[in-house]
């Protein structure tokens, strides 16, 4: 895996100070919220890796740390074997990892035409020689399926789907190796969502992009991605190839998450919910396993020991962070509860 891994994160930790700065100074201690709390992740070249989890699980923060727009406190992010600084990356490094954001209404400069935006990028980063900037812009717009006269348009003249195309054009303009897409279709209607997903898939194949796809929509993830990493309270709790994860999840949280997806086939709504309760406060994490307060198979050992991500003995690509991941079957347990 690590041999062809293009992107490698080891022990990444990102935390945010909470509460007042004055109070912290008076008490000589600052409360920290660990949004990402020790994550190891390797992404192979050309693959599409999904990062899923509920809000507050740290998936966006991890993505931002990887893209270099959020400083990581600890840990290392390596691109192609080279360690990237946690902040103030060089332009050349910035260029290699690009990001597409969730809300195309706020992630584009409202005062800049599409052409202005792309020209600036191409010039500043010397992507193509100056005389070719204009023709290259046209080519980029064609690649994302926008008409060429879109060059003169402002973001507000576009629909949500078209804006997301502009955002994608902006990201691929720099010929990145890794594209980090943070919920790129969540704000879009379902028929528009399909066009953007198809576009991402085509571009990935065409440009050989490595895709880190953050989403809470598991149907979209199953459709688009090769591998899935599930996050819970700042940790990765299960990683597996997509089909393995959907067919035989080993962590009880993953099993619950999958069971909670609304299905087209009418289900029995009278039973108990797939996962009970709310996630704990990230400032008062449970001892031991972070999921134990909601876990249907929690045992005394779960309160004492924090389970590490362990690899399956049968499938080296499947790992889970549960004491019983490779003994009991959480999927079965979750069903019977």
């Amino acid at each position: 895996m690590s041999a062809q891994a293009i992107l490698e994160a080891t022990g990444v930790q990102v935390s945010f100070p909470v509460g007042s700065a004055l109070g912290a100074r008076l008490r000589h201690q600052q409360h920290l919220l660990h949004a990402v709390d020790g994550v190891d992740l390797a992404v192979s070249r050309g693959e599409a890796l999904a990062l899923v989890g509920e809000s507050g699980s740290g998936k966006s923060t991890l993505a931002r740390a990887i893209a270099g727009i959020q400083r990581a406190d600890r840990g290392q992010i390596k691109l192609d074997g080279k360690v990237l600084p946690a902040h103030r990356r060089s332009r050349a490094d910035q260029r290699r990892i690009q990001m597409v954001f969730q809300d195309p209404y706020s992630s584009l400069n409202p005062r800049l035409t599409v052409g202005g935006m792309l020209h600036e990028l191409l010039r500043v980063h010397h992507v193509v020689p100056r005389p070719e900037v204009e023709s290259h812009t046209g080519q980029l717009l064609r690649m994302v399926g926008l008409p060429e006269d879109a060059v003169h348009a402002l973001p507000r003249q576009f629909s949500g789907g078209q804006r997301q195309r502009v955002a994608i054009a902006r990201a691929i303009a720099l010929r990145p190796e890794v594209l980090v897409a943070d919920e790129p279709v969540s704000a879009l209607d379902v028929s528009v969502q399909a066009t953007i997903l198809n576009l991402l898939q085509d571009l990935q194949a065409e440009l050989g992009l490595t895709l880190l796809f953050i989403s809470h929509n598991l149907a979209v993830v199953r459709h688009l991605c090769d591998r899935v990493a599930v996050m819970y309270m700042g940790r990765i709790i299960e990683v597996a190839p997509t089909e393995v994860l959907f067919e035989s999840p080993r962590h009880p949280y993953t099993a619950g998450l999958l069971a909670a997806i609304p299905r087209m086939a009418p289900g029995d709504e009278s039973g108990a919910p797939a996962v009970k309760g709310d996630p704990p406060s990230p400032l008062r994490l449970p001892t031991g396993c972070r999921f134990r307060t909601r876990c249907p198979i929690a045992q005394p050992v779960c309160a004492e020991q924090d389970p590490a991500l362990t690899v399956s003995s049968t499938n080296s690509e499947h790992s889970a962070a549960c004491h019983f991941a490779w003994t009991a079957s959480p999927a079965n347990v979750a069903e019977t509860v």
Partner: protein
Amino acid sequence: MSGPLQLEVSDLRVEIASHRGVVCPIDGVSLEIAPGEAVGLVGESGSGKSMTLKSILGLLPPDAKVTSGSVVFDGSDLTRMPHSQLNRVRGRRIGMIFQEPMSALNPVMRVGNQIAEGPRVHLGMTRTQSVERAMDLMRRVGIPEPERRFRAYPHEFSGGMRQRVMIAMALSCDPELILCDEPTTALDVTIQDQILRLLAQLCQESGTSLMFVTHDLPVVAQVCHKVAVMYAGRIVERGTVQEVFTRPMHPYTLGLLRSAPDVDHPGHSLEPIPGSPPSLASPPSGCRFHPRCQFAEDDCKVIDPPLRLIEGDRATACLHYERTLDEIGADT
């Protein structure tokens, strides 16, 4: 459809006067809800689904007006009711649950008091009675430790808990009908699952009817018996959830079904609906979907197809609905 209808919306038309002329976000919508029935209203943004729900209770923005049609609830037309009378229906006999509980709840009022307010105002309960009722409701919707949580403010609650407060408020006066506007869209999938189960159970227990507006088809499949699909201010198809989602009779419904990935059937390529929704200021001639329709014929450009009954409760506004059925048949 047995017994009297709970709610009957007929030929509802809403107009908004804008500087670019009159826009018509709802254009002739008819909808029926029987007692104890859960009806889903689906469509993309701008289709008029939320607007339809708001017009039922007279909650339209000030520049929007109901210009024709009626909303009959228990024999009287809500659109022609004076506000004083409407206030006795709103919250008392028809409950509401909105998408964003943080903006729908009063941020400076304790959640318990917000739940207790309805029974006090509408049912004439004393303070003690209404507080007791609020605690009981909080217990029913699954808010732990109601005695302590009663005195909390909305910001102290998580998104799921706030939505439970909204549900408790909607249920507080034993309404006959609850209107839900995307009640789980802002929630995480595990919390959504909890809330949907709770809603389905509570409605089953008390026989409350439900109108459920959402853009998420699987959510409708989980909660509703019947579904109406809206496009550009009109209902284009109606029927039971099972029928509409497995044998769609309108190409737009087919398009919606084919553009969303199905978590249980991966590997299908997604087929987006070509084009984009029409401007409501100048909708296309004839069938409003014809510029995007793969089966459109010449007559679709001229004839504006009404919603017509095909079999039982099944209705479609497509002139050539057989083609959609054939397409589905060819698939399986």
